[in-house]
């Protein structure tokens, strides 16, 4: 092996350069499609939490930025029919058994839940993943409820003295989801005026 040492650096460098270029090119090619898919995903998750008869605008484009209690900005999508706000949808987060649970919450102008869906989570398959509407109808049972009906202290899982079922073997996940929805509705109450005003 009389090859000079720098030859290894050259080999490794060339491979890095080659594959780096290839990945950069692929990223360029896929960038637009991936962005489109993200918008489609957002549209379909919004469509699940706001009934189609409530709006005639493009939900994805009607975004209002509102700060939540922690200071982070929440993107609020507004459903409008004939120029009047009929409902809003925004992402809420719960802290589950395995990291954050992201949910999309739709609320009508009176503060009633129009629908809520889990959009991303890493909960245990077979246990915590029952929050997914594909696995169980648990998440659909929130539709039509609001703060006050049931009363605020009942917005908990049964184990904590509330009225919502937990899953056998998993309490942390439903507790996080119920808490997130309650927080989401409180967020609506706080910013109701701003969310519902029409320009």
């Amino acid at each position, binding site marked *: 092996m009389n090859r000079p040492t720098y030859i*290894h650096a050259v*080999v490794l460098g060339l*491979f890095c350069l080659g594959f780096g270029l290839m990945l950069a090119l692929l990223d360029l090619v*896929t960038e637009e*499609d*991936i962005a489109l898919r993200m918008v489609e995903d957002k549209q379909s998750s919004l469509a699940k939490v706001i009934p189609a008869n409530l709006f005639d605008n493009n939900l994805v484009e009607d975004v209002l930025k509102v700060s939540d209690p922690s200071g982070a900005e929440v993107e609020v999508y507004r459903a409008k029919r004939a120029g009047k706000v009929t409902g809003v949808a925004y992402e809420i987060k719960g802290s589950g058994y395995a990291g954050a649970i992201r949910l999309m919450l739709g609320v009508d102008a009176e503060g009633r839940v129009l629908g809520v869906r889990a959009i991303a989570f890493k909960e*245990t398959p*077979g246990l915590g993943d029952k929050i997914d509407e594909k696995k169980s109808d648990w998440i659909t049972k929130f539709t039509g409820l609001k703060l006050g009906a049931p009363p605020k202290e009942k917005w908990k899982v049964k184990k904590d003295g509330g009225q919502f079922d937990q899953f056998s073997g998993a309490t942390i996940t439903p507790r996080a989801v119920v808490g997130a929805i309650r927080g989401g509705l409180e967020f609506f109450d706080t910013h109701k005026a701003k969310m519902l005003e029409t320009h």
Partner: protein
Amino acid sequence: MTASYRTIVRDGLWDNNGVLCQMLGMCPTMAMTATATNGLGMGLATAAVMAASNLLIAIFRNYITQEVRIPVYILIVAAMVTVVDLTFNAWMHELYKVLGLFIPLIVSNCLPLARLEVFAAREPVLPSLVDGLFMGIGFTLALTVIGAVREIIGGGTLFVDAALLLGPAFHFMETKIYSGNSVLVFILPPGGFIVTGLLVAGKRYLDIRAGKPIVTGPVGHGV
């Protein structure tokens, strides 16, 4: 030491199975086998990455110097994983929503790396491609079987969500075997260790009965 294709295929699927014999790739094996469908999806994505990276290393093997081979292997595996990740995200988005979480995990799997080192770095292009593909398929089979056992005992179902992974035509695969009284621990992490251990023991038992010598670890393919 060019092996015959028959041996390569047999090695990948059974004799030197990545999970059941070489005991490699245990991280995704434990993490992704709570259901048979998850195991199948993870296995197929891994098989694609393994076939592609084996092929590339076999093509470039004469240009890669001994001293920097490991970083080059890792670079190529990571690049292939990124290719799979980006293309699935852009053009097979439904599948990506199911597999997306698992794809980056492939980088942490040492089975592709081991096949690059012991096979693709020494063998011609075509056998290397076959080796990567069949090692990947063997990995897929092992993961699917482990997933199926865990899912049946732990949840009472089999191939739940198969239609999400393979398309609506595969709804028939989703079976509910029984309800209630499932042994939850099999879906939880300990179940992965228990089932994998039992399957490794079962494979050894069959091999001994067939009169094959007992091999511990990847003997003959030295890792």
